């Protein structure tokens, strides 16, 4: 029984060994066996989906609650369960016993479970692209206001996706070094669209905020209340402290009054800014952070235990 537990359950998800042995959870690549197993698993998954579609209304909330609980349970166990002595220990040299087995299994499964959210997020992000395409295709089809801009968007999207995929496939087939040497059309297209346009536009978009921040500060940064005055003074000191030339000049001036006098040296710009940073700014931000942390912890527990309204109804 014990051997059965080890051989059947431990390798499940725990794909840690560099050269994993074959077991019921895997199959050699490129063989009909792996394709058959994958096919059966997908069929089973879609079967589950069909069962969910047919599920009675009263079961919806418990079903989604169970999924959430099981997903969270893994990480809670990782935190609460005794840690393995050293997760790098080769499988055959690991200590034996239920607790040790579970702790090693948990440690080995972390990289695997961590991937679940990556993969599911990727599947869900596809939904965003799907919605964007749907909205803009409808706008073009119905010739709504500014429909030519939707055409621009769709053409840019198709071009980027095509060249991105084409270049990626070429690199996989020929090797990155050869592509960088030969520069086929795919490389030009991808480089121009991605590096020459998308990246530059992203940087330009982010940099636009500089102009808005200047205009907003000029208009809104007025000493109308105690809070605004404090905010303005702190911002002024912070900005002065970011200018090396100002800091060096100011501090030099203070040093000329008494370089060896600890009291005088408290008035250097770096000391004043450092005092504000260490004793006012950091605890302020820390308090905000604690607040956010407590909120996240409470929200995490509520979600995990289905106390939040997330499940079906």
């Amino acid at each position, binding site marked *: 029984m014990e051997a059965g537990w080890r051989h059947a359950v431990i390798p499940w998800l725990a794909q840690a060994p560099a050269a994993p042995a074959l077991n019921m959870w895997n199959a050699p690549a490129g063989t009909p066996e792996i394709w058959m197993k994958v096919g059966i698993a997908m069929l089973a998954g879609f079967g589950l989906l069909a069962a969910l579609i047919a599920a009675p209304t009263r079961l919806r909330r418990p079903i989604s609650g169970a999924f959430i609980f099981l997903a969270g349970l893994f990480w*809670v166990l990782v935190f609460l369960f005794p840690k393995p002595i050293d997760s790098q220990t080769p499988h055959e040299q690991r200590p034996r016993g239920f607790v040790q087995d579970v702790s090693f299994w948990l440690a080995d499964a972390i990289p695997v479970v961590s*991937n679940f959210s990556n993969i599911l997020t990727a599947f869900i992000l596809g939904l965003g692209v799907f919605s964007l395409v749907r909205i803009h295709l409808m706008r073009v089809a119905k010739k709504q206001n500014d429909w030519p801009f939707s055409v621009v968007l769709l053409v840019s999207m198709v071009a980027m996706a095509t060249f991105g995929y084409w270049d990626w496939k070429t690199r996989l087939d020929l090797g990155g070094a050869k592509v960088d040497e030969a520069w086929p059309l795919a490389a030009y297209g991808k480089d121009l669209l991605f590096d020459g346009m998308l990246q530059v536009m992203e940087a*330009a978009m982010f940099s636009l905020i500089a102009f808005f921040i200047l205009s907003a500060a000029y208009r809104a940064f007025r000493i109308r209340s105690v809070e605004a005055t404090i*905010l303005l003074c702190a911002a002024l000191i912070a900005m002065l402290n970011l200018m090396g030339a100002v800091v060096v000049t100011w501090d030099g001036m203070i040093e000329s009054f008494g370089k060896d006098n600890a009291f005088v040296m408290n008035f250097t710009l770096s000391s004043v800014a450092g005092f504000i940073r260490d004793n006012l700014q950091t605890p302020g931000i820390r*308090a905000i952070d604690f607040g956010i942390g407590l909120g996240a912890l409470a929200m995490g527990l509520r979600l995990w235990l289905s106390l939040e309204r997330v499940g079906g109804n």
Partner: protein
Amino acid sequence: MQSESYPIIKLFVGVACTVGLYSVLYRETKFYRFFEHMFLGLAAGWAMFALWGETLKSTWWDRMVGSVADEGNPAVPGYWAWALLLPIGVMAYFVVSKKHNWISRIPIGIILGLWSGQQVQVWFTRYGPQMQSSMKPLFPTTWSEFITPLQPEAGAVYPAQVIGNLIFLLTLLSAMSYFLFSFETKSKLFNGMTTWGRWLLMIGFGAIFGSTVMTRFTLMIDRMYFVFIEFFQQGLIPLIGGR
């Protein structure tokens, strides 16, 4: 081999895109909207490719089907259980169904569950050391000098440091009380503390503002560098026979 004229063409296209987006500073025109939609399209197109090329292929597909041995690399078996994630991912698309849209909550719920399960561990690793470092000495260990000397004695706590630590603690507690006791209270102490908390938070926000301004200005300076130094000075002028 990359064409010799390609780098300057690429720079020119980049500058045109920058000018197109910067035109919004004057007014939102059709010229700007053209570039704005092009940007959105390119970003969505890249996401479409990256979802497969950078995420699903390596983290899902390759692990599911494995890889055969090639020169220097051993064979890696495929793990069929990964296939179960596809139907779960497909569940998200039920959001468009009026009758069965509750199913779309399952994949989102799994992601939320995975996130929430980590919060306990994360809370302690993130905030534990911070709580510890907030416990600062509140009594001086030496009265030899009031102000911390330029070369302080190792391990000594000077009265001026204690004042700094008190201010630290006061800021932390009053700012926390501002957040945690945001409901109405008749206690003069709490009201006073939350007012103090608000004022002291303004100092923190002022410093954050200064730091944010630095980033935003630097990003703008970088764009000016791209247009006027990389394109004009280093690209265009040498090309048309300048220095």
